[in-house]
């Protein structure tokens, strides 16, 4: 049997160590770029501005004398231009007013009850 030369094994070991460290560095770079993507996607997907805007316009509209027309405007436009179901009602019971908002864009559903005197 031929003699196996076992000199300088630490050089081979160092070679392995360096190779593995490169491998893990590449893994870190690979993963780091995906982090922002998932964050940005979830921010875009959640309709924060839509809901905020809808609450604002509903708050403005409930005291408007032309409320039935405005309510229809908001429901129809919301369905046609934003693809979201939006219904709201306001009920006056004695001196208290209750507003119920229902919002659903297929991904996020939002319901809210307001009441004020």
């Amino acid at each position, binding site marked *: 049997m031929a003699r196996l030369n076992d000199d300088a094994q630490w050089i081979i070991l160092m070679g392995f160590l360096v190779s593995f460290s490169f491998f893990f560095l590449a893994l870190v770079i690979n993963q780091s770029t995906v982090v922002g993507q998932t964050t940005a*996607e979830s921010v875009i997907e959640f309709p924060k501005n839509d809901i905020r805007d809808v609450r604002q316009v509903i708050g403005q509209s409930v005291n408007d004398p032309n409320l039935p027309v405005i309510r229809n405007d908001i429901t129809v436009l919301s369905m046609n231009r934003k693809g979201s179901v939006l219904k709201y009602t306001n009920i006056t019971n004695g001196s208290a007013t209750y507003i119920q908002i229902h919002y659903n864009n297929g991904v996020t559903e939002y319901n809210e009850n307001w009441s004020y005197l």
Partner: protein
Amino acid sequence: MTNSDGQLYTIEGFAAALIMLMTAYLVVNATSVYTAGDTHISDMQLEALGSDALNMMGTPTNTTMDVIGTSPLRTIIENDDAITFKTMFLNLTNNRTGLPPDYISRIGSTMDFIQFNASYTCRDLSNNVISTTPISYSRNLTGGEHTVRATKWVIVNEGVCGNGIQHRAVLVEVLMWRD
């Protein structure tokens, strides 16, 4: 007779080659993902910026405006004031600290990195058909732009969509892109 010297070196060579191939694959793969992730981040920022700008334009600027329930955006729609919309929107989205890079050649200009195309949509009372009316734009859309949309509900006192003058809700939509 087969010479069996240097078998360890051969194995090391194979192992090193495998590791280097894997590393190269991961690095190349990482750069291709980078574009997609980057696009989403700038989209998110642009959309947030547009929503904020529209929100500011939809807010009464003084107490007199507040009493009669109006805002710059509402006034713009009621008066078909394209120039005010353009000035205000470009100021809100493009103004930055410091001088623009082109300030010598175009004194008074803003940086104009963000372009927009704005319109509002209303409903016809007689048949529930919706239609869109342009408000203003800073540059024509050619179809190649990567746009994001920001929207804002506004209650106006105007004969929108051919109906009589009354309080109506319209949806202001702005397409924005970087140039």
